[in-house]
């Protein structure tokens, strides 16, 4: 039995590991640390974006029509969402050098109030496991990823908002 004890320990450790890391695909997961610049050249660390409330990270590109529709739809209700939940949206553009220059033109031309970050070589996209855009992540105030959605269809923004509201109730 004495010989078996360490094995039992190992078993429990692995059991714990399984529960910790793989029990749920999103809960408890943090955003990896990547350095990105905003439209003014200011550097942000993605693991600590500096907001106190819930944060929505939305991956988009100037050539992605559904991404722009999603950000336009949220733009219309953004003020109300912020007032009600204290949330912020960070729009991460995956435009490369071909279209990166259009990002500031587009974001300002559309009068967006989002924090817009540039990911021209896909470093953040890759580390977040994003296959294609649009891909949206919701972070609670501790930086845990609590909801993700890889698509945009009109109405998705309402579901996102109900997820944000759940956080502000907690």
């Amino acid at each position, binding site marked *: 039995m004495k010989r078996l004890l*360490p094995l039992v*320990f*190992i078993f429990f*450790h692995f059991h*714990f*590991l399984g529960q*910790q*890391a793989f029990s749920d*695909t999103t809960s408890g*997961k*943090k955003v*990896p*640390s990547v350095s990105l610049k905003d439209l003014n*050249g*200011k*550097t942000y660390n993605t693991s600590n974006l500096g907001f106190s409330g819930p944060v929505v990270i939305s991956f988009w*590109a*100037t*050539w*992605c*029509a*559904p991404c722009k*529709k999603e950000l336009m739809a949220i733009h*219309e209700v953004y003020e109300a969402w912020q007032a009600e939940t204290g949330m912020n949206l960070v729009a991460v553009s995956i435009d*490369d*050098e*071909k*279209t990166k*220059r*259009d990002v*500031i*033109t*587009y*974001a*300002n*031309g*559309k*009068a967006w109030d989002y924090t817009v970050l540039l990911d*021209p*070589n*896909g*470093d953040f996209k*890759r*580390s*977040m*496991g994003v*296959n*294609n*855009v*649009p*891909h949206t992540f919701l972070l609670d105030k501790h930086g845990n990823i609590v909801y*993700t*959605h*890889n*698509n945009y*269809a*009109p*109405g*998705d923004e309402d*579901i996102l908002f109900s997820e944000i509201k759940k956080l502000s109730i907690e």
Partner: protein
Amino acid sequence: MLVVCNAVLSWSQGNFTGNIESTFQYLNDDPVINALQPPTKGLINSYMNVFYTNGGFKAGMRMESYLPRIQGYPNRFDGTGIGYRYLGYVNDKVDVTLGHFYEQFGTGLAFRAYEDRALGYDNVVDGARIIFKPVSGFQIKGVYGKQRLTFNGGQVINSAGIIRALDADFNLKEVCQKRLASFPVDVAVGASFVSKYQPDDDDALVLPENVGAYGGRMKLQYKNFTLDGEYILKEQDPSLDNGKIYNKGHAAVVNFGYSKKGLGFSLSAKSADNMSYRSDRNKELQDAFINFLPALNKTHTYNLVATLYPYATQPLGEIAYQADFIYTVKKGSAWGGKYGTTIGINASTTYRPVQHTSGIDVNDSSRVTYEARLFDKSDSLYWRDINFSITRKLNKSLLLVLSYFNITINNDVAKVSNDATGIISSHIGVVEASYKINAKHNIRMELQGMFVNKLSNGNINDKGNWATALIEYTVAPNYFVSFLNQYNYGNPDTDKRVNYPNVTCGYIHESTRVMLSYGRQRAGLFCVGGVCRFVPANNGLTLSFTQSF
């Protein structure tokens, strides 16, 4: 034993991220559009990325598999194996990576290693990289390695040359925060030096074995104005691309922008000559590029505009200009309506640069065959695109987008079709309407028409006129179905007046997506049910699965 267990436990407390992507095709013969059934009938590409971070430690890898590769991928991709792996350590000052890494210096004119999976493009570097940040706003990068050329028999095959590179980036205001807090201009400067080594493999010529490319960049920002640019000079680099001439090369981009809330405007210019820079001088097409030379034009999303006449950079040289304007008319005004109206205007042109030959003996031993100057364009047109669009939300449910595009492409230089002669000029009109039926249900349609100008002899150029219709129905957040048809009704060959119908449906749950489509597809950037990606031409069934974790 317990030590091991605790190591395992601490490992489990790190952070895992990653994704899976798998695309399966079952293809049919379709002689009308020259689509052939592959001998295996079925094709499948699969990828899985796993990234792990724990404190400052990081590690990652990608398994990839081509059994065999799907259509449009380089035909030398085959087998299953590790396509990407690295170990590293990162803290506030230092970021060290050993193994594979992606990287970009400045705008990429000198160096960019990246992956575009939709195109099968991956020039990742295998070696060592250090990023050093002594103070906030100042950073130095050092890179040493070999580039991925292909994936064969389940293994990465690197290209012949070795790359060594250094880059420095300096943001004045961030470095001197206290002293410059009230200074109204943001200034950022940078400099890059890249060198490649490849042994001389030519019997007749003495080839330079070390070839450098270097230059600087600057970005100024004052209130709503930005001005940025980069200039890179390349040393003598005789290659298959340039016919082994000993000319130096250059690339320069300048960009000016003004934007405020509701208005954005930008003007850009690019000059490039003899700037194909590869880690193997004997490679061509998209292989072993060290640098990145994107075309200076808008990336369009509507099917006909994006897929029929796309323009790619001529690495041997081009001069290009672009202007982009976007304006949102305020809500509540006569023009803006209740929900606001957005107007976008964009124009871009590209020309052949002048190659001065006076005073140059093309046949002398220097093998310098011409002289090129910065922004010195000829009258020979490669590309022109003038387009505008109006987006207006008419009421709570109905969104309308009207667009017009005038695209001219020189098919003799930037070849897009085997059926075309000289310059192809086309007009494209698109009407898009989206109607929100209720909180979750939405229907969207697009009607597109492309009208190709006739040649001066009265003959129809290329494949003539096209029409496209799309209907898409979405149920948020889980389902979509769409039907697309392209019809080449104006083809001069009546047997080739073909329809390209395609039906697609999909299911999405959080970050899991399953998509099934059946029909004919033309190559190009293709957007369905909320996602855009590049899809090669085929006839048959495509099933794709993506998952992020």
